[in-house]
């Protein structure tokens, strides 16, 4: 982000007040704090505006695929997630060949769908691949995919066959995969003609930068880079080199999203996992199985959470196992780590429990208690609101760390309240020793 002085230098310096500010300097200071837009100045020259937009853009360009349903790639500003967090999560695409039964294939890909902690994980994209070599077959395949698949997609095809399908698909803004030294001019021409983002692929980092430089000069803005990483080591190192060069050295040729084209099976998933941790914006698979997809989607969720916001679970009642009208009632804070830990430990006991999550603004049990966000009144209200007290006449178990609220809570709830364990890991033992529900 440019400083106020850098902004000021590019403004007309007339203090005309048309932007609503008393002086150009005041306006420049608002710009530097992202509290005003460049467009608010009606007199700024086009050259200045372009210069400002370029210098205030994130070091990694945001490339958007699809229409309606979009995949956003890039827009990143940091090298480590703890600095500010990563912005646009890695997208995963699965291949559809123009030589297979497309309906069945899309059906199968759509089944790759999971729900986890209230979030839905699905395949983000498909990649329609030309295996036929026939422009008509490929075009028909793409048209059918567009009918069956609402989300973004990529077109994997050589330059000589691509145009017919691309002309039919361009309104959906597909990703063109890929240009290299051999087909460069043709692919760039197609990308420009149909305004679709283009992947540049070269296993040599120097020539990849050369391709990016040239494509940009020829007028392609939406570029995605494939470093041709053939293994884990290349994936980590090439992605790190590209990202550090873009962010720390402002090396513009690498200021684009990175992607990997992998096959399927164990090693492909391992590369995808490394790419997800290390700056990859897209991985295209030949195929992906559910036992590979669920851990991979979960990894992405973890890496791309905002590190500045404690992750919270919604206040509510979470039945574990199949609790009945006598099952014990546990409650705890809504800090997600607390929830996951307590839940896992209850599950371990194999004893059904009603778990009430109380909104503590993402704070853990003890912190929330000290901050006054986890008091008996608050807990009693949550238990009443969720209706758990009418679902079960079981005893209420207090987290051991806040044993002090037991008598007050007993009074408020008018039912048996006992003190649970201080450590979550002791819950299974505690539950097993609890006398069975009447």
């Amino acid at each position, binding site marked *: 982000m440019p400083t106020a002085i850098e902004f000021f230098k590019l403004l007309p310096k007339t203090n005309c007040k048309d932007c609503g500010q008393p002086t150009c300097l005041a306006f420049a200071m608002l710009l530097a704090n992202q509290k005003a837009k460049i467009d608010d100045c009606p007199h700024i020259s086009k050259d200045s505006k372009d210069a400002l937009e370029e210098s205030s853009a994130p070091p990694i360009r945001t490339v958007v695929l699809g229409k309606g349903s979009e995949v956003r790639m890039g827009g990143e500003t940091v090298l480590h*997630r*703890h600095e500010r967090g990563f912005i646009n999560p890695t997208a995963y695409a699965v291949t559809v060949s123009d030589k297979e039964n497309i309906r069945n294939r899309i059906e199968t890909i759509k089944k790759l*769908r*999971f729900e*986890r902690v209230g979030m839905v994980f699905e395949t983000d994209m498909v990649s329609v691949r030309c*295996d*036929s*070599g026939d422009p008509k077959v490929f075009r028909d395949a793409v048209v059918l995919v567009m009918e069956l698949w609402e989300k973004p997609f990529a077109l*994997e*095809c*050589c330059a*000589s*066959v691509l145009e017919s399908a691309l002309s039919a698909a361009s309104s959906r803004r597909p990703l063109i995969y*890929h240009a290299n*030294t*051999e*087909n460069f*001019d043709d692919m760039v021409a197609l990308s420009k003609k149909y305004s679709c983002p283009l992947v540049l*692929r070269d296993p040599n*980092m*120097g*020539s990849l*930068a*050369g*391709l990016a*430089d*040239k494509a940009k000069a020829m007028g392609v803005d939406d570029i995605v880079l494939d470093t041709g*990483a*053939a*293994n884990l*080591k290349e994936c*980590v*190192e090439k992605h790190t080199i590209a990202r*550090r*060069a873009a962010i720390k*050295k402002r090396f513009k*040729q690498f200021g684009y999203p990175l992607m990997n*084209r992998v096959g399927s099976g164990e090693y492909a998933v*391992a590369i995808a996992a490394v790419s997800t*941790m290390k700056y990859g914006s897209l991985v295209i698979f*030949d195929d992906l199985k*559910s*036992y590979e997809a*669920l*851990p*991979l989607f*979960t*990894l992405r969720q*973890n*890496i791309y*959470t905002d*590190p500045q916001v404690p992750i919270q679970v919604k206040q509510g009642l979470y039945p574990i196992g199949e609790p009945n009208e006598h099952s014990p009632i546990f409650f705890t804070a809504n800090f997600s*780590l607390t929830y*996951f*830990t307590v839940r*896992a*430990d209850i*599950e371990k006991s194999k004893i059904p429990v009603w778990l009430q999550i109380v909104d503590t603004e993402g704070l853990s049990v003890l912190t929330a208690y000290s901050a006054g966000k986890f008091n008996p009144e608050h807990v009693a209200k949550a238990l009443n609101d969720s209706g758990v007290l009418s679902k079960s006449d079981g005893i209420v178990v207090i987290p051991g760390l806040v044993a002090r609220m037991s008598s007050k809570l007993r009074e408020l709830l008018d039912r048996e309240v006992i003190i649970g364990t201080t450590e979550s*890991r002791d819950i*299974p033992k505690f539950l097993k020793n609890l006398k069975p529900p009447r």
Partner: protein
Amino acid sequence: MDGGEGASCAEHASADMSDTMKIPDVSEKYPGKIGEIVLGKGDYIAGGSDGMPLLSFENTCKRRMMIAGEVVDDLTDYPELAASMFNGRQKDPVEWSLMWKSIGADMICLRLKGTDPDKGKTTEYASELVERIADATQLPVIVYGCGIPEVDDNLMKEISNSVKNRRLVLAKADEEGHKTISSAAIAGKHALIAFSNLDLNLAKQMNIVLTDFGVQRSDILMDPLMAPLGMGLDYSYSVNERIRLAALSGDKMLQIPMICDATGAWDVGDAVNDDDADLGDVVNRVTWWETMTAMAAMASGADIVIMRGPGAADMILGYADELRCD
């Protein structure tokens, strides 16, 4: 890793595109370096990195992350699914350790769950078991107690006294207790795990407390708690990265090799639940769950990782080998 171009798609070569650009040098020279810890009979060394993990262009230390295979002396609370992966050899901890060695583990991580008074295994039995495993495998052994502080204190004292001429890793010193186990480690010239709970400052504090007590820095492994995939991995990933960055930037009290326990993956419902066919085969799923947890540990700075599943250990061994900074 094929580009995926259709075979029948003929490319016609266009203009010569030999113009390559010079890429800026992005390797970092850090003022700090991670210390080394000597394990076993002096034949195993962990730590020593002078750059961020997995980057051969800046990390001149060519050591790969070590893998410790988990063994327990009492299977009561051990997952049946994991037990089923060891062909019955898990019933004898020594046999089980030998199996880990044949898988390729660099260390054994022994958890003496049976010393819980409810289970009744004696400290003499435990000491003898540690010795037998060390002798049979010739691998360095990490020793955990049963998790009850008073019992473990006594156990560590006993093991340190009776297991001579073997350098063990005693686990673990934490905020709640470090004196007895530290004394035991110092007396027996053993190494020690310093545990902290997902916090850079606590990790540093533990190292300061231990060194103030008289433990040498070269005898400490720090465990900043590896939260598993889907259960807080994001926190661990960033805490580890921050620890490693601070250490390389010169914070001496964080220049201590890091050990991460990936077995927590087995506590995650989505990894081990077997009642939803849509989630896919559970053996493969939990194997990936643990492998990805270990990969995240490795990418964020782990020098040693503790593994439970043999399949996951095999995979992470292969990846770690490939990703050593050769």
